[in-house]
């Protein structure tokens, strides 16, 4: 039993990590007024590049670094489009997702002639706590990193002058500018950093978790991360909670039926689809229960136009 819980927690730690990283990044970007729904795409590209790098060099850490860099690059692209070219941030994101999906697989075909998945590559190690028997807890270091980043992000936004400037850009760019904040540059940097974090998340999926890239590796998690941002009411600390709750509920959605099956011997067929709704309904219920009025940045998604 205790073993089950620990295992459930281990699962949670894995599945919450990319969510938390991406959500934190997105919060930073959105606080500056830029929304980036291309997270799914960033996950894919970074997961792919980091897997590739690791495959070539055999060094997952280097792989993850490249994943980060690709994330930053995607951020640069989205930043330039939505800040300087006043592009529609949502369209750009939608397009980027489709591009990333197609492109990562094309590259995979190009490299390995494979339509499905990359070769298995070495993975980052995990912290393993053994409590005897089948009671083990697996903690991916990246998860700890993601916690640190989330807390740091909160501190940065709430406690530092840069944070204040950044938030001003998301609240009222005109005011911010009149107070000498360079809105364009701030937004660009925020977008780049935000995407970078998502990049780490994507890299984690392939070189931290599975040890290979497959074309559907992100499986909608980019959008869950977006939901987490709103769930957290744009507060990185709450994003930790959100990611955890979702991750835990997600784990439970497979744990419960298996558990019941083991106890009762009844095998779930169609009903398993109902179990699969657990994480989504849980999140919804939690939100309905705890959510007070959201405080989203007022200039969110609106390009800053001076004249």
């Amino acid at each position, binding site marked *: 039993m205790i073993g089950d819980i620990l295992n459930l927690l281990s699962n949670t730690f894995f599945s919450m990590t990319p969510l938390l990283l991406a959500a934190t990044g997105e919060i930073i970007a959105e606080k500056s007024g830029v929304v980036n729904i291309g997270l799914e795409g960033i996950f894919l590209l970074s997961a792919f590049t980091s897997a590739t790098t690791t495959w070539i060099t055999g060094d997952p850490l280097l792989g993850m670094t490249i994943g980060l860099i690709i994330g930053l690059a995607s951020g640069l692209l989205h930043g330039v489009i939505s800040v300087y070219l006043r592009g529609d941030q949502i369209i750009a994101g939608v397009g980027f997702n489709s591009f990333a999906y197609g492109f990562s697989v094309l590259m995979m075909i190009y490299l390995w002639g494979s339509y499905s998945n990359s070769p298995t590559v070495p993975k980052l190690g995990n912290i393993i706590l053994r409590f005897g028997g089948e009671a083990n807890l697996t903690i991916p270091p990246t998860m700890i990193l993601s916690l640190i980043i989330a807390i740091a992000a909160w501190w940065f936004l709430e406690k530092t002058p840069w944070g204040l400037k950044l938030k001003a850009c998301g609240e*009222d760019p005109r005011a911010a500018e009149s107070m000498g904040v360079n809105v364009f540059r701030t937004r660009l940097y925020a977008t780049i950093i935000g995407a970078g974090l998502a990049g780490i998340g994507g890299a984690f999926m392939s070189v931290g978790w599975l040890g290979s890239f497959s074309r559907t590796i992100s499986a909608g998690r980019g959008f869950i991360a977006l939901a987490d941002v709103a769930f957290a009411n744009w507060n990185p600390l709450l994003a930790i909670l959100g990611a955890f709750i979702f991750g835990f509920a997600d784990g439970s959605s497979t744990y419960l039926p298996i558990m019941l099956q083991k106890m009762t011997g009844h095998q779930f067929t169609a009903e398993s689809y109902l179990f699969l709704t657990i994480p989504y309904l849980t999140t919804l219920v939690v939100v309905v229960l705890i959510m007070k009025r959201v405080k989203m940045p007022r200039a969110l998604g609106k390009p800053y136009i001076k004249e």
Partner: protein
Amino acid sequence: MASNEYAVEMRGIVKVYPDGVVALKGVDFLVKRGEIHGLLGENGAGKTTLMRILYGEIKPTRGEIRVFGRRVSFRGPWDAIRQGIGMVYQHFTLVPAFTVKENLYLSLLSVNPKARLGDAVSKADKIAEETGLRIPYDEIVEELPIGVQQRVEIIKALLRDAKILILDEPTSVLTPIEVRDLFKALRKLRDMGITIIFITHKLKEVKEITDRVTVLRKGKLVGTVETGKVDVKTLARMMVQREVVFKIEKKPAKPGEVVLEAKDIHVIDEEGVERVKGISFQLRKGEILGVAGVQGNGQRELAEALAGIRRVSKGRIILGGKDITGYNAYQRYMKGLAYVPDSRGTGLVPDMNLVENTALTNLYRILGWARRIKWDRAVEITSRVIRELEVVAPSLYAPIKHLSGGNQQKIMVGREIVREPDVFIVAEPTQGLDVAATEFIRKTLLRLRDNGKAILLISTDLDEVLQLSDRLAVIYEGQFLAMGRPEEFTIEKLGLIMGGVRE
């Protein structure tokens, strides 16, 4: 050396906005060191545009700028700020969701990145000392009265030790008392050697505070004169190129029966604060009831309650003998009530065009079969507004945000006037209007009254209320402290009562 006698030299400034509007057609603008320099001009003359250029917010299409003799070309306000330029906008540029403290800190950072929150406060305190502009620190900006917000704006600019301070229509939302304090502060600043550029439409103020004045007209320079050497009439003529009458002749009122009656109404706002504490009054046909008071004393809430935008927590409202307390705004407008809010941010939809904005309160008049909107009707109405109020606009279909403040105001007032309402509630109707427009709107209000309309005029402009109203009420902390005929009040007396002092 010669060039250093000037704090600001702008020469041959041309500005063409992206949508092709030519706002400035080669303007020369020279400001001496340490003077208070007035900038006058009709609505849409280009004052704000010129200042936004000086402040580096937008780039001139052509022309050269020197600050303290140095040739400059700003990439953004942050450059201007480093050159010691500070600006207080017509529409404030504070982050509404931040506290005063945070706003001040933010602007301090732009000149001193190593500053800490504490520094901002202490520095602000010092400035408050010198200038007498007192402000709270921990309040959320958007919850502050306009007057206070403006003080924050000014201190914000001074925090960055601005040597040149631009004020765009600072007085258009202030009461005489507030204006007096402001002027005191400005004089102190001038004595401290700070150069001030002061935009206004109120010629009295120009005479009172400025050393020299520059007048713009339709994006061209009319001239720069020593304030001492010209009288108000001359300035007005320079502005509008025609004679302006300042005393509007006013027939005696012939009040008819009561059309609007408020019975002990109370209003509680979002924060649960009671903003209106039991106000009763009767408004008769053919009379103007003025409400004077300092911003934030509940006049906004009173007006909104009467207009049906806010629920009353207690009391009744009777319109034309009918109890309309339960009606929403839309229904009241249909019943012949009209309301002009004190804030364009409320009254207008910036991204919608003139026609759509006119439709806002005229909606019920342009609905056809199956609640269909007859746009051709809307266009007619809009054209009428534009014609009758001489609105300057690129086209019927230009987004309203591209109009100058004054022209926006004209649309907002005009669209109500053309409805010929029986009861007309107007707040700050001439806010930010040039003399001509002001004159026009005041005349219109009188005309409506003579045609037997009932008007409730809420204004911080005492000249306005004294000049127009047949009866006058003074509001203080949600109550009418005094009610009487305008002759019974002097400006001084009013000021005292508005400050809460009963006689």
